[in-house]
């Protein structure tokens, strides 16, 4: 049946999230028509959109987080009053909101007195009868954490269920390219999922220029890179408040989002772009002119006058000045090269074949940044299919691929979120605006591999005894399985061990 098992592996692992278990037939289908298997998903109209009941738009999420913050404040004040007599500082810890916006929650083990006193690993029969916890002080349910988890779950379910996964791989790629960090604060954590849904997803198979504009005008990005604080020095607000530019967003737009470092811009250009996008902001909790959490162009903060960017003069026509600048950046030759290189590096190799980069770059330029055309150019290239599978799956790709193979549609994002933290790729929270590195050096590191093995063993110990690892191996790699891997799986001493080894095998880890 399988006509080209090696190409099936490329289709499934390089371009997708791996074969699904059960009766999906993914490997066989991919083997009989590798390119068609991948492309089929791209033909679906609006296939990248993620519309799930309960997931709200950015302004509604802002309302919710502001209301939550108000309630926390009220609760804290009430608690402070009632605790004047008996001081229990520990009781209010659950309410604290640290700078990173991560909710401080008491881990379950410590929350239960019976578990806390028993030695680790001892069963605590008291817990079995009635997990009686002392009633914690009334606190509002943490809407930030709840939202983050709901957004994460929706994304994970989509990825685990996708036919091939190329679309979700593109979403993850672009989301990392235009990353924000949920660790920036409560608003960022609240908005991380919405940002991806609203600014990234609609455009992953659309035009780069549209994505760029949607991203740079999204409140989550403006908040992440501080543009709401950037005031034109000569603007009314700048004059009144004696404050000025913040170049953060302008620099990252050119360095990370479009031209790339060395893409031909100078510090002068950074400053110019920063001036051009002054006034790009979002309505805060007391938004006067717009709903809280929606994009606003604040003319009072906008630097008046024309600006020169990359040798071109942009007249001051308000918001349109910045939009024109972004449109030009989006079609700049350096941008085409930067994006082409990054895409090829992500999908094909840390050092991608130059001919492939050239091909993608040409596709980007001739179509004015049509990302579907660029993706198809990648899929139609010979290099992308002939290059050996040398990249290692990122932690996210690894975990999603595991969920697909084991046919476990996540009902709770906890395992994934914790595992991503453990493996160094916390969801929507890279350490810097450059996103997570996209290289083997990053993900095939010693500690990471050992932790991956531990997580594989843990997954296998939970699920392994219901599955025949020999069958799973055929679903994963079919005729492309190496003799060594097959032998290792067959000689494993238990199903659990075999499954752990399968999840760690080069056939599963490499893409």
């Amino acid at each position, binding site marked *: 049946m399988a006509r080209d098992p090696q190409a099936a592996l490329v289709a499934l692992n390089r371009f997708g999230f791996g074969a699904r278990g059960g009766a999906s037939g993914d490997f066989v289908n991919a083997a009989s028509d590798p390119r068609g298997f991948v492309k089929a998903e791209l033909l679906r109209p609006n296939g990248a959109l993620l519309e799930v009941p309960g997931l709200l738009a950015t302004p509604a999420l802002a309302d919710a987080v502001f209301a939550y913050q108000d309630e926390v404040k009220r609760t804290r004040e009430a608690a402070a009053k009632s605790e004047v007599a008996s001081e229990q500082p520990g009781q209010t810890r659950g309410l604290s909101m640290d700078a990173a916006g991560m909710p401080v929650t008491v881990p379950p083990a410590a929350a239960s007195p019976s578990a806390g006193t028993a030695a*680790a690993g001892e069963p605590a029969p008291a817990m079995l009868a009635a997990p009686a916890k002392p009633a914690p002080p009334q606190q509002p349910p943490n809407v930030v954490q709840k939202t983050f988890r709901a957004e994460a779950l929706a994304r994970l379910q989509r990825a685990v269920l996708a036919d091939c996964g190329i679309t979700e791989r593109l979403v993850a790629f672009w989301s990392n390219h235009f990353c924000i960090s949920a660790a920036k604060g409560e608003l960022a954590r609240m908005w991380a999922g919405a940002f991806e849904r609203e600014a990234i997803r609609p455009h992953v198979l659309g035009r780069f220029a549209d994505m760029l504009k949607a991203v740079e005008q999204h409140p989550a990005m403006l908040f992440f890179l501080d543009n709401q604080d950037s005031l034109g020095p000569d603007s009314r607000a700048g004059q009144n408040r004696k404050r000025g530019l913040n170049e953060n967003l302008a620099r990252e737009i050119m360095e990370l989002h479009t031209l790339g470092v060395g893409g031909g811009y100078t510090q002068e250009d950074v400053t110019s772009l920063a001036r051009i996008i002054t006034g790009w902001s979002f309505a805060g909790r007391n938004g006067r002119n717009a709903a809280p959490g929606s994009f606003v162009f604040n003319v009072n903060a906008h630097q008046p006058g024309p600006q020169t960017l990359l040798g071109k003069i942009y007249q001051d026509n308000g918001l349109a000045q910045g939009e024109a600048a972004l449109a030009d950046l989006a079609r700049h030759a350096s941008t085409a090269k930067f994006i082409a290189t990054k895409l090829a590096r992500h999908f094909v190799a840390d050092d991608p074949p130059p001919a492939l980069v050239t091909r993608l770059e040409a596709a980007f330029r001739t179509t004015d940044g049509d990302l579907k055309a660029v993706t198809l150019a990648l899929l139609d290239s010979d290099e992308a299919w002939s290059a050996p599978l040398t990249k290692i799956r990122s932690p996210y790709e690894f975990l999603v691929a595991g969920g697909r193979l084991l046919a476990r549609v996540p009902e709770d994002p906890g395992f994934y979120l914790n595992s991503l933290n453990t493996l160094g790729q916390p969801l929507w929270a890279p350490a810097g605006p450059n996103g997570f590195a996209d290289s083997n050096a990053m993900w095939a590191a010693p500690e990471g591999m050992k932790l991956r093995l531990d997580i594989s063993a843990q997954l296998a110990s939970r699920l392994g005894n219901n599955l025949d690892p020999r069958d799973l191996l055929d679903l994963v790699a079919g005729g492309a399985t190496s003799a060594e891997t097959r032998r290792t799986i067959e000689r494993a001493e238990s199903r659990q061990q075999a499954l752990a080894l399968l999840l*760690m095998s080069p056939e599963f*880890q490499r893409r």
Partner: protein
Amino acid sequence: MERITTSLLPSRRQWMLAGASFAAWAYLPKFARAAGYRDPRLIVVILRGALDGLATVAPIGDPDYAGLHGAIALTVDGPHPALPLDSFFALHPSMPEFARMYREQKAAVIHAVATPYRERSHFDGQDVLESGFAGPGRVQSGWLNRAIEALPRGPRVSGGLAVGPTAPLVLRGTAPIVGWAPVTLPQADDDTAMRLVDLYTHRDPALASALSQGLKLEKVAFGDDMKPRPGGNQIAAMRQVARGAAKLIAADDGPRIAALAFDGWDTHANEGGAVGRLAQLLSGLDGALAEFEAGLGPRWRDTVVVVATEFGRTARINGTQGTDHGTGTIALLAGGAVKGGRVIADWPTLKLASLYQGRDLAPTTDLRAVFKGVLTDHLGLNENVLGGVVFPESAAVKPIKGLIA
């Protein structure tokens, strides 16, 4: 490589704990025993990977043993002498607790046993061992679960206790079971890590290098002395699992029947003799038995622990100081209810002509006969049920009588 797993699996564990409310163990099996009231406990321990029975209970009286087992053969002299059980068999020196129980006639060995499975795949072998069917491919329910189903329902019934993150097949099925797992479980054990390093070495040198370094780093972090200590942490984990399970089983309203599995017995290379890898594992098993005894307290008197494995290993050691997949092996019984102090064996001898396919200890006792003997005399199940439902199509395999005191 123990690691706290709470953070990764909170919901399932909490569910298991919450679901294990002992009040729900509504009624117990009734045991008609002439010798007054007993409240029996049965614990089944599965050793996954195939235990080398000839290295655990060594037939040192067999003239061919020392030659076949070569450098790893046990002896009754030297720095680590094996513990004589009778004039013919000697126990591995890593099992002093079992030896004591044996002397106290609370432990027994059944030698040259095997399930009806005669191929050499672990998965299929474990299927047969745990499902109770005569052949592989029946993985829906286990014999211990069907035994619980078949127990006469008295005023109260017990569920089975599955120890570990998942229920072993032997205990899966329609009878209710509850689960418990210690907070710390060994994650990827050393054996799995070694196998993966080996695979990477052949297939993916870059990953081999990364993983090896990662494993080395961990040993440093854990203060390991860098000497290979296969399964070091596993030993402690085995004791810990047994200690926790014993505590649950000892409760007045606790589960009467439990099953757990220990991994790591697939000793293809560097098995070790009186000391080494297998010795470590046996020491962990011995410790687990001691934990059961200590933790069950007065209940130990009415307890039987059955230790079984999917098949044995080759009689002759291979080229890497280990043994490959074989056939005949041992089963162990321990507990206050065991009529012990005996090695029960219809010894086939290790003569070349006697070896199964010229390589394995020939099985002379069907492992199901051992299980049936325990289920009959300890739990009161009748032979018809055992031969039809619990171990389907096994009417010809008669229970071994007299295993229970």
